[in-house]
C-alpha cells in the first residue's frame, strides 16, 4: 500500500515537471520582445536591450528555465508588469474569492447530484429518472456565461434580491459574503452537476446489483437503511474521485464566471494576463493553478484508497 502511495507521489512529481516545461516553453515562443512589451513602443533601443539583459533574456533558454524553476520552488514568481506587483502577492490576494465560490459550488453540486442521482438509480426508468437525466444533459449543455447573464437579469435586476457583481470578504460581513458568492456558485454548480449525477447514478446502479443488496433485503432492513447504509456506501468510490477532480478543475476554471460577476479572483487575473500578454503573471498563475489541481487529485486518490479496502487489495495485486 505504501508502494502505491509512493508510486502516485512519484507520478505527480513527473506530471508537475512536464507541466512546468510546457508552461515555460509555450509562453516563451510568444512573438515580440517582452522587454519591448513592458517599456512600450516609444522606448529607446538602449533601454530595451538593458532591460532585456536585466531580465536575463539573453541567456540560453535552458538556463532561463532552470532559474525560473528554482525561483518557483522558493515561491518567487516574479513581478507582473500589468499590476507592477509580485505575482505571489497577487495570487494570494485572489485565492479567497476563487476558493469561496468553488467550495460553495461543489457543496451545492454534491447535494443536488446525490439527491437526484440516488432517486434516479433507485427508481430507474421512472419519471423522476427521466427528469434528473434531463437535468444532467441540460446542465452540461448550458454555457455558464449565458446562465450567468440570465441570473443577473432575473435575480439582480428584476427581483433585486441579490448583488450582481463584486465580492465581500466574509470577515467583513458574513451575510453579504454569502449573498455575493451565491449566484456565481449556483452558475458553477450547474455546470458540474451533470457529470457528477451521471457517475452517482451508474455507481448506484452497479451497487444495487451486488449480492450484499439481496442480503440486506433478505434480512428485512428498512428501505432507508438498505439504500443509505449499503447501496450508497458501496457506490461512493467513483463519485469521491470525481468530486475531487471537479473541485480541482473549478479552482482553475472559474474564468468565465468571475468575468460575468466581476469577481476579483484567480480567473480574472488569468484573463488580464492573457489580454495584456503578461507572461510572468500567466506563467505564475498557470503553475499555481495546475499544481493545486495535481496536489488535490493526488490527495483525493490516496484518501479514496484508504477509505475503500477493495482498491487497496486490487492495487496491491497489481503492484
Amino acid at each position, binding site marked *: 500500500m505504501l508502494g502505491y502511495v509512493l508510486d502516485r507521489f512519484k507520478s505527480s512529481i513527473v506530471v508537475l515537471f512536464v507541466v512546468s516545461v510546457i508552461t515555460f516553453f509555450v509562453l516563451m515562443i510568444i512573438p515580440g520582445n517582452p522587454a519591448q512589451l513592458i517599456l512600450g513602443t516609444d522606448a529607446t533601443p538602449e533601454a530595451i536591450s538593458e532591460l532585456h539583459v536585466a531580465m536575463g533574456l539573453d541567456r540560453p533558454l535552458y538556463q532561463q528555465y532552470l532559474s525560473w524553476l528554482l525561483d518557483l520552488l522558493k515561491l518567487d514568481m516574479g513581478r507582473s508588469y500589468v499590476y507592477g506587483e509580485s505575482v505571489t502577492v497577487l495570487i494570494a490576494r485572489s485565492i479567497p474569492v476563487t476558493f469561496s465560490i468553488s467550495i460553495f459550488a461543489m457543496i451545492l453540486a454534491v447535494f443536488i447530484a446525490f439527491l437526484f442521482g440516488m432517486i434516479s438509480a433507485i427508481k430507474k426508468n421512472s419519471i423522476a429518472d427521466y427528469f434528473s437525466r434531463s437535468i444532467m444533459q441540460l446542465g452540461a*449543455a448550458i454555457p455558464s456565461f449565458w446562465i450567468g*447573464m440570465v441570473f443577473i437579469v432575473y435575480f439582480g435586476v428584476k427581483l433585486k434580491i441579490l448583488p450582481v457583481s463584486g465580492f465581500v470578504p466574509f470577515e467583513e460581513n458574513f451575510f453579504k459574503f454569502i449573498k455575493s458568492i451565491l449566484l456565481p456558485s449556483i452558475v458553477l454548480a450547474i455546470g458540474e452537476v451533470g457529470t457528477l449525477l451521471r457517475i452517482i447514478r451508474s455507481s448506484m446502479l452497479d451497487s444495487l446489483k451486488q449480492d450484499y443488496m439481496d442480503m440486506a433485503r433478505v434480512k428485512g432492513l428498512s428501505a432507508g437503511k438498505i439504500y443509505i447504509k449499503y447501496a450508497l456506501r458501496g457506490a461512493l468510490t467513483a463519485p469521491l474521485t470525481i468530486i475531487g477532480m471537479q473541485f480541482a478543475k473549478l479552482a482553475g476554471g472559474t474564468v468565465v464566471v468571475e468575468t460575468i460577476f466581476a469577481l476579483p479572483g484567480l480567473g480574472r487575473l488569468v484573463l488580464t494576463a492573457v489580454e495584456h500578454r503578461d507572461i510572468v503573471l500567466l506563467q505564475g498563475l498557470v503553475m499555481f493553478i495546475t499544481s493545486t489541481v495535481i496536489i488535490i487529485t493526488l490527495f483525493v486518490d490516496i484518501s479514496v484508497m484508504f477509505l475503500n479496502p477493495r482498491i487497496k487489495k486490487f492495487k496491491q495485486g497489481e503492484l
Partner: protein
Amino acid sequence: MKNNVSLILGIILVLIIIVVWALSFIYMPYPPNEMNIPNKFLKPSIDSEHILGTDNFGRDILSRIMYGSRNVLLVAIGSVTLGTLLGIFLGAVAAMKRFADTIIMRIMDGLMAFPGILLAMMLVTVLKRGIQGSIIAISIFMVPVFSRLVYSMIQDTETLLYIKAAKSYGSSRRQIFFRHYIPAMLPRLITQFSSAIGSAVMIETSLSFLGLGIQPPFASWGLMLSESRQFFLGYPYLAVAPGIAIIITVLGFNLIGDGLNDILINRGNSNE
C-alpha cells in the same frame, strides 16, 4: 437500437444546426455585418422584417446567428478532427514503439493536468486570435483525450488472439494498425468524436465570449453574447438567440455521443 431517445433527439438537434449552417450559404435575410443604426434594438417579432430583432448596431440577429454557425462549426469540427488525427497518431506510436511510450504519454499526462480552458487560454496568448488560433488551441486540448484512448485500446487488443495471429503471419505494423486496430477502435473513436465536438463548441464560445476567440466584426455566438452584455439589462432578448443556438448545438452533439455509446459500446448492458 430500440428506443434510443438520446440518439434520435441528438440527431434532430444537430440537423437543425446543419440546416441553419447550410442555409447561410444560400440565403441570409440581411448581410450579417450590415449596420443600420436607425433600426437598432428592434424587438423580435414574427411580423417584423427582423424576426429575431436587431442588435445595438441595427444588425439583423437572425443573419448573425446563421453566419455565426459557420465559424462555430468550422472551429469545432476543424479542431476536433485535427486533435483526433494527432491523438490517434501519438497514441499509436506510443503503444507500438517501446521507446516512445514514456515520453509521449508523460507529455499527454502533463497536457491533461491543465484544468478547463486554461490550456486553451495559454495557447491563445501565443497564437494569433481568430479562427486559426482557436482551431489550434482547441485541437491541442483534444490531443491527450484521443491519444490516451488509442493507447489504452491498443494495449487491450494487443494480447487478443487475432492480433497475435496477424503478427505471426508476418503482417507489418502498418497493416496491423490499419486492418485490425482501427476497425476495432472505431466505435469508441466515433463516440468520443461526437462528444468532443460538443465540448469544442463550448470552449470556442467561451473563448469568443472572453474576447480571445473570433474577433469583431465577425459573428460568433459567444461574441454576440459578449457584445450584448452592455445592453442586455435593457434588452434581454439580445442574449436569447445566441444562448439557445449554443445549447442546441452542444446538447445535440452530446446526446449523439451518449446514444452511440449505448449502441456501439455498452450493447445490451447499458446503464443509461
